[in-house]
């Protein structure tokens, strides 16, 4: 039998028992809708979670340190012993930048210094001064920024944390670790104002005793007396720490630390990375490297941002093979992926239950149709229909109900998702929480739901179709 005859015959059968078939199709539709709704909730939640985590900079970040350098994170995975340890210098940084899937490489750069408001001569705050690369603009911390991001990578501007803003304004401190959002009035007192940062610049110098030139308060003096002999021997590496001060305009106030990543401790003030590098600021914890002979400037740690979070493992591995130590939170991200796989599976099973019930509806409808069309099947066989022809007609009817039910269900599931999303966001907005799209219906899910619906329907059609095909025409045509 040709395809169009099959379609016509199956189509007319579907129309003949229109109400019953419509109800069966509706049943499949509801089943598919519940599946789509459940899975799109799972997908939406996963997207939301990975988006949040992704923007936190944890999952696409590899921290690179030189092997044998104890300044780096303690938990870094050491390079394989076979690889030769290399200095973490500009050559290495450039090398990482050239690697596939690497979006950005920047130093984990932070200095210490005294920070005060320009107008407040007495309110000095000794604190860590961090830096932000231009890419930090997309960090979730800037979702509710008061003011703006840096106007350029070298602008003499600063972004501060809300609770540091309170410090600057001499307001009582909130408990540590809580995100502080300033009131618009408080923010107005800070935005556009200037802060003065006093820091130390590293300058190449004569073979002068290191400790003698350092005036920085609070930094422990190196007590290794022998080191002065070493420095005398290597004049080229000697340098001076020169106190400097810098005026920065406050352009933005954030409530949580942007690009927090693996940064340790609290960093309440940020300036543009390129600016900080150009200033040769002495970094926090750099004392160690100042005592270590090296021909070139080396980094304490480099942050490698990977374009695709799936490529993190590969990038990390490649860097380790080059002789550096690395750290990433990949294992944690694997755990999260596993959790969502289970969640999706669980939601999928729940959603499929309705579809399973609906598929029983198909079996029921078609078995009824066989009883009803018993004589007709007999006639068709007497007129030359093969068992296969009869089977295909019933199969096609099941498949058609699957396609229509699937389309109906995908549409219905999408609508349910929209409505619930809409309603929940109204609720979230009332609670002053940013609305989120946690109900996502991707195209592949619609296609998969359609395909699955057809598959389930065909499977449900197997038994009725083969039963119809086996029907004995002599029995069916017996006139009684």
């Amino acid at each position: 039998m040709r395809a169009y005859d099959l379609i016509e015959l199956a189509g007319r059968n579907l129309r003949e028992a229109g109400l019953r078939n419509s109800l069966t199709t509706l049943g499949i539709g509801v089943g598919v809708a519940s599946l789509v709704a459940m899975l799109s909730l799972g997908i939406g939640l996963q997207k939301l979670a990975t988006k949040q985590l992704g923007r936190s900079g944890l999952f696409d970040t590899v921290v690179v340190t030189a092997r044998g350098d104890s300044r780096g994170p303690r938990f870094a995975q050491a390079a394989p012993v076979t690889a030769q340890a290399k200095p973490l210098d500009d050559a290495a940084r450039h090398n990482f930048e050239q690697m596939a899937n690497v979006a950005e490489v920047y130093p984990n750069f932070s200095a210490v210094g005294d920070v005060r408001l320009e107008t407040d001569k007495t309110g000095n705050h000794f604190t860590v001064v961090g830096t932000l690369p231009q890419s930090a603009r997309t960090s979730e911390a800037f979702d509710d920024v008061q003011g703006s991001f840096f106007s350029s990578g070298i602008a003499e501007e600063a972004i501060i944390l809300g609770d540091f803003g309170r410090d600057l304004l001499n307001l009582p401190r909130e408990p540590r670790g809580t995100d502080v959002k300033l009131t618009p009035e408080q923010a107005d007192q800070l935005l556009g104002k200037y802060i003065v940062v006093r820091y130390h610049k590293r300058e190449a110098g004569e073979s002068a005793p290191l400790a003698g030139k350092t005036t920085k308060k609070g930094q422990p003096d190196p007590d290794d007396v022998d080191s002065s002999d070493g420095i005398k021997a290597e004049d080229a590496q000697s340098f001076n720490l020169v106190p400097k001060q810098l005026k920065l305009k406050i352009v933005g106030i954030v409530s949580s630390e942007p690009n927090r990543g693996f940064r340790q401790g609290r960093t309440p003030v940020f300036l543009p990375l390129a600016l900080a590098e150009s200033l040769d600021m002495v970094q926090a914890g750099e004392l160690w490297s100042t005592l270590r002979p090296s021909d070139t400037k080396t980094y304490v740690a480099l942050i490698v941002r990977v374009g695709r979070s799936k490529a993190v493992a590969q990038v990390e591995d490649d860097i380790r093979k080059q002789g550096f130590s690395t750290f990433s939170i990949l294992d944690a991200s694997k755990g999260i992926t596993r959790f969502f796989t289970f969640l999706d599976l669980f939601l999928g099973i729940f959603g499929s239950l309705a579809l399973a019930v609906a598929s029983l509806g198909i079996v029921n409808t078609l078995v009824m149709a066989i009883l009803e069309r018993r004589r007709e099947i007999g006639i068709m066989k007497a007129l030359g229909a093969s068992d296969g022809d009869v089977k295909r007609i019933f199969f096609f009817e099941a498949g058609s109900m699957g396609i229509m039910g699937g389309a109906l269900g995908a549409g219905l599931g999408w609508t349910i998702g929209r409505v619930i999303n809409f309603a929940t966001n109204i609720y979230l907005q009332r609670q002053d929480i940013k609305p989120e799209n946690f109900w996502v219906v991707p195209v592949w899910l619609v296609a998969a739901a359609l395909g699955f619906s057809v598959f389930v329907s065909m499977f449900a059609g197997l038994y009725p179709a083969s039963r119809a095909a086996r029907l004995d025409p002599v029995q069916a045509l017996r006139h009684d």
Partner: protein
Amino acid sequence: MATNGTEFESVRTVSVVRHYKLGRTLIPAVDGVSLAAGRGEFIALLGASGSGKSTLLNLIAGLDRPDSGAIVVEGSDLATMTSEQLAQYRRHTVGMVFQSFNLVPTMTLYENVELPMRFAEVKRKERRARVVEALERVGLSDRMKHRPSEMSGGEQQRAALARALANRPKLLLADEPTGNLDSKTGTEIMDLIRELNRTLEMTVIMVTHERPLAERYANRLVFLGDGKLVGESVNELEKIGVAR
């Protein structure tokens, strides 16, 4: 009209046996029937109900399979065919009409006649011409869009005949074709069958229990009793019919 010789032979059954199980006992519906029909012959199968005549017809139609014996139609043995081959055989070689007409009630007359051509994969363009031709032959070309329920019994049986002709079969099998009709329309149908038998040279095998009808139209009368062939007579009266 020849009744012997294979090249003129349309149907030959050789010791065909078909029995049904009823509980533990086997009921022989057809019990060793050997019968031959020449091309273009009109044979009437006569017998009381339960004599096995309908079972024999279903066996020849390829709707049923014999338990033993052979049924050779147009040179091929139905007993050795696969079910797909049997379907092919029913599609192309046999046309059937029944006592209860067996038109599909939800289809129009046109669609009913077209139905066997769907299974035979006749091209769409050709179908219309064939439907019209078949309906003209039975005198129903003005009723194409009517459903069976809108037609009289005689018209329905004529429609069934048109459907049986659709794939231009060599063999027409009729199971009590006049059983549900009054005698006048019954006669009309029989006239039509005889006309098809003569003009299209179709072999006709008809099951009936009305002996007068058989004597009036068939070349040969075959009598069945308890599944066995119990008698046969070449119909002399039929020759009068020819002359008429």
